[in-house]
């Protein structure tokens, strides 16, 4: 017992000793989640910031994504929260972001370089400067080039349709005896690129959700058929309930599927985990009957309205949003750049020696030029998540054989109506 008491005491000393906060500095707290190494890079950039700004102490709180999704909203609702946060639900919570317009050094710089995406993170009709995208993402497909070569199957070229890709992947699957031909992440956001390419429209004339249309149903039908035929890897969609996110990244990395529809954020992850095992390429979004556009998204860094130190927040944001810093951040994280100046200047020196990475990033940058009415509108549409959630929930149930497609259609309409009803209570 004595031993335990002394070790507790030793721990106490060690614990307190290691955290020493200077009292005269303004503390700015950044709530940040990481999918890979971006947290470390951000910490590195902030360390440099503190050297040049000794009066500001920036604390990077690395949290689980779950905290951003579940806890931050409650904090915000009660008028609390960190000073800065990295958030993905930018539009729904737009009322809580700090308008940086009167605090930043040069609003025009912000407008020029980030202005296109301000509508993703501010209430409709506002002219606020809420923050910037740390990373732009675009959904898109990846193919295992080596598997295609081994099977002797030609990869479908530009303008190929979903059916072309599935047919080709099926050949590869059969020749290489793989468990499935392709997979798509369990996410309403991901499949909305597919529904959009079949002409789906989610947005009614009044800006409210429209009923599920035939375009949505035709892609949903395809997904269900592909699952039933054993072409689509079943465990990603079938083996979870509700809106749980599931990715098939590991199956692609492990060369179990020749074709995988996910998005640009995977590039760094694929590069480190696949290494030299096989060659992979980004292929953009296959075409449907109407379009071949991927769905953009990403994570934004925003100031929180309830901060005590808006000036200092703006100083930190100005630093992080500067062209030089963002360029370095992009080059080291292998993210798609979200800064107009950086994009236009080009010549990004991505820090990797993996030959698969640069072409993949270029493909995504090129693919971001493709567009369709729905994919353009969705990122700035408030009800996107209502739609995504029910798509995932109900289509999975159809795949699991619990309900029919027709039943799913009316249930999805009901779900969305309930969401809208609840929100307007």
């Amino acid at each position, binding site marked *: 017992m004595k031993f335990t008491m002394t070790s*507790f005491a030793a*721990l*106490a000393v*060690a*614990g307190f000793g*290691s*955290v020493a906060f200077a009292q005269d500095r303004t503390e700015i*707290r950044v*709530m940040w*989640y*990481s*999918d*890979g190494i971006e*947290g*470390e890079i951000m910490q590195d950039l902030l360390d440099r910031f503190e050297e040049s700004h000794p009066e500001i102490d920036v*604390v*990077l*709180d*690395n*949290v*689980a*994504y*779950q*905290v*951003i999704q*579940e*806890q*931050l909203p*409650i*904090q915000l609702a*009660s008028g*609390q929260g*960190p000073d800065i946060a990295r958030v*993905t639900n930018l539009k729904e919570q737009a009322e809580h972001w700090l308008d940086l317009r009167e605090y930043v050094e040069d609003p025009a710089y912000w407008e020029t370089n980030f202005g296109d995406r301000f509508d993703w993170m501010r209430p409709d009709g506002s002219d606020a400067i809420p923050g910037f995208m740390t990373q732009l993402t675009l959904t898109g497909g990846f193919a295992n*080039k*080596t598997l295609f*070569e*081994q099977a002797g199957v030609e990869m479908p070229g530009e303008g190929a349709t979903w059916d072309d890709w599935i047919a080709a992947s099926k050949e590869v699957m059969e020749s290489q005896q793989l468990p499935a031909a392709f997979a798509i992440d369990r996410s309403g956001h991901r499949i909305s690129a597919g529904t959009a390419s079949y002409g789906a429209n989610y947005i009614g004339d009044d800006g409210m959700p429209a009923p599920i249309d035939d375009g949505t149903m035709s892609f949903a039908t395809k997904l269900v058929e592909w699952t039933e035929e054993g072409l689509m890897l079943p465990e990603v969609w079938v083996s979870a309930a509700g809106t749980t*996110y599931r*990715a098939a*990244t*590991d*199956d692609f*990395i*492990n060369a*179990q599927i020749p074709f995988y529809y996910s*998005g640009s*954020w*995977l590039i760094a*992850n694929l590069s*480190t*985990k*696949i*290494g*030299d*095992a096989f*060659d992979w390429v980004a292929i953009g979004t296959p075409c449907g009957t109407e379009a071949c556009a991927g769905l953009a998204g990403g*994570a934004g860094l925003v100031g929180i309205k309830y901060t005590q130190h808006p000036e200092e927040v703006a100083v930190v944001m100005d630093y992080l949003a500067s062209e030089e810093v963002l360029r370095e951040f992009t080059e080291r994280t292998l993210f798609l750049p979200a800064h107009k100046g950086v994009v236009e200047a080009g010549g990004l020196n991505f820090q990797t020696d993996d030959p698969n990475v640069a072409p993949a990033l270029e493909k995504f940058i090129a693919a971001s030029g493709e567009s369709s009415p729905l994919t353009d509108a969705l990122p700035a549409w408030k009800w996107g998540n209502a739609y995504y959630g029910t798509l995932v929930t109900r289509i999975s149930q159809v795949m699991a054989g619990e309900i029919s497609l027709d039943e799913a259609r009316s249930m999805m309409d009901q779900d969305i109506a309930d969401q809208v009803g609840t929100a307007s209570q």
Partner: protein
Amino acid sequence: MSRILAFIFRRRGHGRGWHWTDIATWIWLIGGTILMFGPALWLVASSFKGPAQLAEFPPTLLPYVQQTAMVEGYDAPLPLYTTTQEDGSTKVLAEIRRIGVNSQMVDPGNPGERINVNIADRSPVREIGLATGNYVEPLVKNNFLRFLWNSVFVTVMATLITLFTNSMAAFALSKYRFRGRDGVMLLIVATLMVPLSVILVPLYSVVNAMGLLNSLWGVILPTVATPTGVFLLRQYMLTIPDELLEAARMDHASEWQIYWRIVLPLAAPALAVLAIFSVVWRWNDFLWPLIVLSQREHYTLQVGLNTYAGELNVQWHYILAMTVVTMIPVILVFLFLQRFITTGIAGAGIK
């Protein structure tokens, strides 16, 4: 079923040979041991695998790394592969690079000559190796000592408060007759029916209103008034004879002294059981700390390890390794106190 149970149950007399129930007993015990420990061992083995190996199918039992060799004329070590030659023999070669389905290889013994091999004809040479980086990197990068201290603080404080408040309440509920006693007891037991995960939002509002967010006390206080603890201690204290208390009262002991000097020591086995459970529960608490704590100097271990779960990518190799780390104290408790835990519960037994 009843017959089987009965046979298992029957005590064998002395000096007789093995009866089939003895065999069944040992099958059950040994099978049980494998089933209880095996899964945890698999987790430990997996935690030493690199990220690529974790995604491998079919999996391997033990962690492996690919062997490499330094080859003359190349700066970095080259990975080794066993290749199948045209005549069917096999040979270990080092790979320089892979282009499509062709692999450019070199014989480490004869670095001058390049050999082209189809990738279907090669398989990596691997040896058992531990990806210790899974452990080292998070421990070095994170303020691990701080997380550990927070976890210890929460566990110890919560357990102490639990023991005191619960034992006092249990004393009152078992040794006094007053109006509303049954009501209080019923209220406490009734809250067993509602798990924490369904009242998160109201509880959060309360903790927020008390200004306990991002404070370790916000983690500790909501958990200490556990109905289970009061229930367990009360049941035990009921078995302490009232005569002892009466005798003490004759000697002019105050009620507080009776609680402190007589009832508490006599309830030690039950207190010990509650202490052990409280330590395990508080150490393992996950959902609630995750909701209350969002500033890193307050993280407990369980919250700290979860920062490796991103939106689109979960860094399993770190999560598995850190899970093993958080299991270590629990296993130590288990090793040192196992006799005590099991007989303690038996002794405290709910009567």
